[in-house]
């Protein structure tokens, strides 16, 4: 009985641990290879570092405009300060000001290498 319980706890722990890792540490390797082969990758996958902004894909004009007026111009240098991963948010520095983006938006932003 106790052994089953221990096993169950261990399974549960492993499951949550995996999810936690997935949520908090992005697969930077995938991001790098994406950059390498496509020349571009999503901001939501990016680890801390300096990149250049390419474009924001969005259905509505509103977000594109907001980003534009906050300094997201194509070719602009963009420093990722922190990326808290899935369901979290990304903090970047653009034109000297700190900007926080939700992961949903970061998913629509493409970056290229510096």
């Amino acid at each position, binding site marked *: 009985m106790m052994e089953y319980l221990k096993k169950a706890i261990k399974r549960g722990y492993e499951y949550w641990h995996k999810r936690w890792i997935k949520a908090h540490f992005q697969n930077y390797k995938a991001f790098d290879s994406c950059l390498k082969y496509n020349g571009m990758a999503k901001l939501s996958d990016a680890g801390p570092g300096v990149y250049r902004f390419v474009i924001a894909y969005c259905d509505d004009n509103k*977000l594109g405009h907001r980003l534009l007026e906050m300094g997201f111009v194509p070719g602009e240098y963009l420093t990722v300060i922190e990326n808290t991963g899935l369901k979290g948010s990304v903090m970047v520095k653009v034109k000297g000001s700190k900007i926080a983006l939700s992961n949903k938006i970061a998913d629509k932003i493409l970056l290229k290498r510096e």
Partner: protein
Amino acid sequence: MANKNIIVALVGNPNIGKSTIFNGLTGSNQHVGNYPGVTVEKKESSKSYKGYDITFIDLPGAYSLSAYSDDEVVTRDFLLDEKPDVVINVIDAANMERNLYLFTQIMELDVPVIIALNMVDILESHGKTADKKAMSDLLGVPVFATIASRAIRIVDILDCIVNVGENAKLQNRTRIKVDYGEDIKEETDKLENLISKDSRLSKLPKRWLSIKLLDGDTLALKLVCEADNKTEILKQIEKSRNHIKEHFGREAKTEIANKRYGFANSVVKTVVKRTGQEKIDVTEIIDNFVLNRYLGIPIFAAVMHIIFKFTFTLSGPMVKLFGLFFKWFGETVAKIIPDGPVRSLVVDGIIGGVGGVLGFFPLVMLMFFAIAFFEDSGYMARAAFVMDKIMSRFGLHGKSFLPLMLSTNGCAVPGILATRTLDSKRDRLITMFVVPFMICGAKLPVFALIIGAFFSARYQTGVMFFMYFLNVVIALSIAKLLSVTVLLKETSAHFVMELPPYHLPTIKGLFLKMWERSWLYVRKAGTVIVLISILIWAVFAYPKAPVNESLTKAEKAAAQLEYSIAGRAGKILEPLLKPIGMDGNRAIALIAGFAAKEVIVSTLGTIYSIGEVGSEDARPLREKIATSKDWSPLKGVAFLIFCLIYAPCVVSVMVFFKETGSSYKWLALLIIGSTVFAWIASFIVFQLGMLLKIGV
């Protein structure tokens, strides 16, 4: 001779100390109102100087003059329609490039501009200095350096305003213009030609309009649709946009923004010089902790705790003082007016009702002060960022936590008013809807009474905590429910937020902000509350019970209550409330609670003929309830759950109604929906309890 009037508008990006400069320029005689149609605050103030009446207008912060948010539309409409004599563009020196992006747009509107270069101290801490003179020469506008947190040399700026306002023509000398390049220039020239053919459009700044049209600005396009030669213009716009897209391989708006930033960048390069070593950035250090993955939420909780501690410990005596004052005032008035319905109306109806709401005034004021401090210092943006992770799962926005927090233990009215900071209509509606469900300061006495009556001292805190927990669960589930049903189609505002550098707020600014908001609260509450108090008083005072001299005073009051409209309504509602374990008496108390939640306790006191029951000392009532046959712990809990969820008080309902843009649909949903939901929730609890025989 009448003084000459000069209208001055302050424009700038959000969070750059614009209002501090406004406060410094004007002093405290500010007038706060609303722009018609939108919920953007309008701040106005006037000052006379050297024979001129200068009217200052603080326009809402905007990143650009486009048509994508209320703030920006207001700013731009004001600049276009009202044509201020002078525009002061406040620019954050430490973040000059993006601030100049707005400047390039203001410049095209052909209005006289003065630049106030703010936060020079922060720029200096970065080891750089800005050359005012070079900037002034380059841009062709006067430039002033200011430090928001310290005193500004106002006289210089005032002199300059007078000078510019007087010589408006002089100011229109050839100023520097953004060079959009040959290709874009050709297209705008074509558009300008077409625009000048129409009589109405030619009154607007042509160059600005043609650029905006290429930009794809919806409001500018709407203007064109009213023109005579609209088909011609629209065709040309389409052609020009395609041309630019072919030429540059990018959208026209991106290219225009690129050129503007290029201009701004070159200005920064000539003006800002590196002179010294970069000092350690305090903002970075604080942010390392505050925005930390693990520490973020605990720090946030600690800050909230500090705000609550601050407001409740300081406001306690003041709230008591206010209560005493209203009591004294009522008694004095009672002495003046002869006995009769008029006295009852004035003393019990108006003074009692208004006093009940205004009694919370010190608490609300201190709460606003604490919040203004964290807002001005720059922490609130971080808190929204930290909370967004949790809030977005329930269909709320990161900024929604502030209204919710104001409402818990505070009051729902300022909470609903605080939803103005939210950008999208959907987020606002959901947040406004959820705010009244929180346990506000007025619901607390009810909880204290019932919990005190049925639970031993050991469990009281636990039960109270459980109630808070239940409250949060209910509020979040309502938010989620709304976001997946009624408001499914509306999209939430994207979370894009600038995190401004930390700085110490000024005392004057804090007090002004606090005063503005609390005054708004009093005015909103005050206008409606008088009417509602009279109505509620009438419902409880009429028709008069037959006089029976043998009863004591308290018994008389109880008899009157039973005889009144409210009492009869309670009796009628009794069968409806039976399944959730309530009788007619509690129904009466709940009806009274619709006026204001704190009345529930005093009404129960009157019903059980105990006489006056203060919210502080409810011991006799508590004993009565604990021993009464009508009550049981289960019934008490069901009653509490009903109190927690059912229709919010009249004042918050009225404010909700006004803030939703007088939507009857939402009003009905709030009142009926919450009451039905409350009935279902307490029905489940009561019947489950009866089945399992818990606390019967």
